[in-house]
């Protein structure tokens, strides 16, 4: 039963096994409307697998997945297009849902690739393609957005802009986001809930809680923990005793 109708997807002790090897096990997490949940963890820790369990791509899973939405946008980590198929960015935008031209233009403008609209998908660079992938996922105005390392290959300034965009989308569309990211700064600034994976959930909670967690420190090292904790204290203002805000 779903008592909280903000819940979009809920994993209960979920796991997936491929040829007798657990890719990930015992994951419980909830994505709610307007919230960003971030999965972090080393390579092979089961981040993408967890995302695919949440999306229902893997069928024979342990545990259960409760999904309360069908409006899903997905940016996969790896996507290889077979070039026997001639397909333009415009056709790709219409791949899973029919949306009108203005929505396509809006999404492509938001990710900064409107000029590529009539280009062949095969002629794009890695970063351009990644921006198109994000545009496609957000153009259908999903309730649940699953982003598997969405900014890989994007230049540094673009990366920051795209993360800001993702944060903005979560606010304006009030959609829930399940994000996989290596960028710990991003994790700190925009995420509501962090799940740290290493074949299982090693710790989870608010970004600050996770940063202080000893298991997290063991996994990522003291330095990564410092990035998160010090970030929290980089305010541009201080609160006076009277409650006034003073700029630094």
């Amino acid at each position: 039963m779903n008592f909280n109708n903000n819940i979009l997807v809920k994993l209960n002790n979920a796991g997936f096994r491929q040829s007798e090897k657990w890719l990930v096990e015992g994951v419980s997490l909830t994505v709610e409307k307007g919230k960003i949940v971030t999965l972090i963890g080393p390579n092979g820790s089961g981040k993408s697998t967890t995302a695919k369990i949440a999306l229902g791509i893997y069928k024979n899973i342990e545990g259960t997945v409760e999904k309360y939405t069908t409006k899903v946008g997905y940016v996969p980590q790896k996507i290889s297009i077979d070039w026997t198929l001639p397909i333009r960015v415009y056709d790709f935008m219409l791949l899973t849902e029919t949306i009108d031209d203005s929505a396509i233009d809006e999404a492509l403008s938001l990710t900064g690739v409107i000029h590529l609209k009539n280009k062949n998908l095969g002629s794009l660079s890695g970063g351009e393609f990644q921006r198109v992938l994000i545009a496609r996922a957000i153009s259908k105005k999903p309730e649940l957005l699953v982003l598997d390392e969405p900014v890989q290959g994007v230049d540094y300034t673009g990366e920051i802009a795209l993360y800001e965009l993702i944060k903005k989308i979560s606010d304006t569309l009030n959609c829930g986001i399940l994000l996989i990211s290596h960028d710990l700064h991003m994790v700190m600034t925009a995420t509501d809930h962090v799940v740290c994976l290493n074949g299982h959930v090693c710790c989870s909670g608010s970004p600050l809680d996770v940063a202080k967690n000893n298991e997290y420190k063991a996994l990522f090292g003291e330095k990564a923990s410092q990035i998160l904790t010090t970030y929290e204290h980089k305010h541009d203002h201080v609160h006076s005793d009277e409650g006034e805000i003073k700029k630094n």
Partner: protein
Amino acid sequence: MFDDFFIRALVAGIGIAFVTGPLGCFVVWRRLSYFGDTLAHSALLGVTMAYTFDLNIAISVFLISSVIALILIQLQKKTNLPGDALLGLLAHSSLAVGLVVIGFLTFIRFDIMGLLFGDILAVTTDDLLVIWTGGALILIVLKLIWKPLLASTVNYELAEAEGLNPDRAKAIFTILMAAVIAISIKMVGLLLITGMLIIPAAMARNISDSPQKMVLFSIIGGLLSVILGLYSSLEFNTSSGPSIIAAALILFILSLFKIKQSIKLKN
């Protein structure tokens, strides 16, 4: 107007080209040409069935091809053999069994050449009915599964994640493949049906920049191949299947010039 065998052949061929065009594109995109070949080879068994039990050839071929497709899917799940080995196994064994069965059916005179390479003289008014109603059904179903099929051709996981049910689309497409082979076997012949699926689509790939355009050009290419092929078949007294495929090949060669041009433009 269908009294003339040539008009019948032309109407049949045009009906087939409308169906093989779009289906052929998916065969090319999804790399299924060997799969199409396997279904076509198994069609011989379907034809012998039709003669033995006095069934409609198209229906009989459709049933046998569908069964072969199901067996293939089961073998893929249950054995460790690679896909192309399984396809070869099914293609040649069903062709062989079909030929052996023909050997037993001594009371019927078979036009083996007609079966293998198509025979325009064999097209009856009933065949026209089968081709056009069957073809229309195939196209309607393809239109219905177009989105999930195209999306899963681009990326299976994307289609599955966004709720398009790609497995169902794939299963339906397999049945459509069996159906298109069933309606075109008399005209093109079982050795050359895959050519009718692939060559116009390959030609269209050279001159298209979107999936819809490729489907359109593939249909146009198929239509031209049928018309050119049948007229030359009449003129030179050649089998209809090879003549149609040869015409398609000429169109493909012409389309290569278009590629050369666009490469030059890029440089």
